[in-house]
């Protein structure tokens, strides 16, 4: 008997997901931060104030779009040459370059913003949301357009989550809290509650 074929088979039985569904799914039902736990470092680190959270979110969205396009093209090349085992290394290298690009652009056009984002810009490289996006769109075998919409949804979902968190934390600043909840613990608890409420969005696609 022949070994299990290693070549890629088109699984035509799979339901074709519509673009609006992919978008909603990435923003709400499978929110990258609150349901898939991706991008938690900036989510906890930069969510103290709304006016730093928003630019961070926008920068992430931009990097997501760029790396989604790059990852799609790279994957085509890798599959064509049957060297998928280099995928991870190729992806991370591309993401690192994309971040560098955003960093340089920001530095040139908005030095003030560049300073306020500080250390977190290079850290987008190790933001798993970006790499996760690239990997998931590959696993789900999305087409080019689907990947792009998926990236947009993931980015918007990230902005939504980080803004909600920042809003809540700004309110918390003003209230009296027990001393042991100073620090990350209360942010995590808030994250848990947000995550629970986002579960209500599941089933949107059913």
């Amino acid at each position, binding site marked *: 008997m022949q070994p299990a074929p290693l070549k890629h088979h088109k699984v035509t039985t799979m339901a074709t997901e519509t673009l609006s569904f992919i978008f909603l799914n990435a923003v709400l039902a499978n929110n990258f931060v609150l349901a898939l736990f991706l991008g*938690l470092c900036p989510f906890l680190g930069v969510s103290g104030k709304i006016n730093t959270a928003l630019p961070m979110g926008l920068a992430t969205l931009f990097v997501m779009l760029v790396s989604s396009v790059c990852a799609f093209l790279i994957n085509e090349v890798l599959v064509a040459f049957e060297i998928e085992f280099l995928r*991870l290394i190729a992806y991370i290298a591309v993401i690192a370059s994309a971040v560098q690009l955003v960093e340089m652009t920001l530095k040139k056009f908005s030095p003030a913003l560049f300073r306020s984002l500080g250390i977190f810009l290079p850290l987008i*490289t190790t*933001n798993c949301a970006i790499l*996760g996006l690239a990997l998931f769109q590959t696993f789900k075998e999305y087409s080019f357009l689907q990947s792009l919409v998926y990236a947009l949804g993931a980015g918007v979902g990230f902005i939504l989550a980080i803004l909600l968190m920042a809003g809540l934390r700004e309110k918390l600043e003003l209230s009296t809290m027990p001393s042991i909840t100073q620090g990350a*613990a209360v942010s*995590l608890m808030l994250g848990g509650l947000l995550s629970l409420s986002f579960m209500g969005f599941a089933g949107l696609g059913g």
Partner: protein
Amino acid sequence: MAKKQDNTITWDTFSEGLWRENPVFVMLLGMCPVLAVTNSAINALAMGIATLFVLLASGTLISLLRNSIPKQVRIATYIVIIATFVTIVDYTIQAISLDLYNALGAFIQLIVANCMILGRAEAYSSRNPPLKSIVNATGMGLGFTLALLCLGVVREILGAGSLFGIDLFGPRFEPWVVMVLPAGGFLVLGAWLLLFEWLKQRKSETELNPASES
């Protein structure tokens, strides 16, 4: 981290990652896998070991090469090295058990993006000799595994009524489903942090005025 330049390996080199600078509970690094794969103890353990291996291997290599990597390209070099070891781990786990691989999903490959590993490479391995890096990386990796287990054990016991797949309470136990859901990850980690903060504050209070306790 401004470490003094002595090359002696002390107990501290090893133990700081375990407790005082625990990557998860104290430094809040590498949170994504911490929350995502800890819905059962076995997944948590596997993830911890995989991370430990990558941390150890990349730390050793970077430490060996630390004097021949030009400053400008160091981050790129580190990332390539880390990605290499993660790919190795990825294929190894696939070869060991497909079930485990499916349970961990994309999070094995996402070890690359674990800020803890790049952070250690930059802050420690690139400035210290190999042996010291190895000892420190082992401590950090074990600390990370320990933290994952802390979460995994609590979430599995409460969320599924079992530990390492062994049923604990019998059929009459009604599992707290929320614990294995994403929200449970946030809540349990938050609870652990609260506990540690409380212990720390109580300790410092007793140290400040021992009279108040008696």
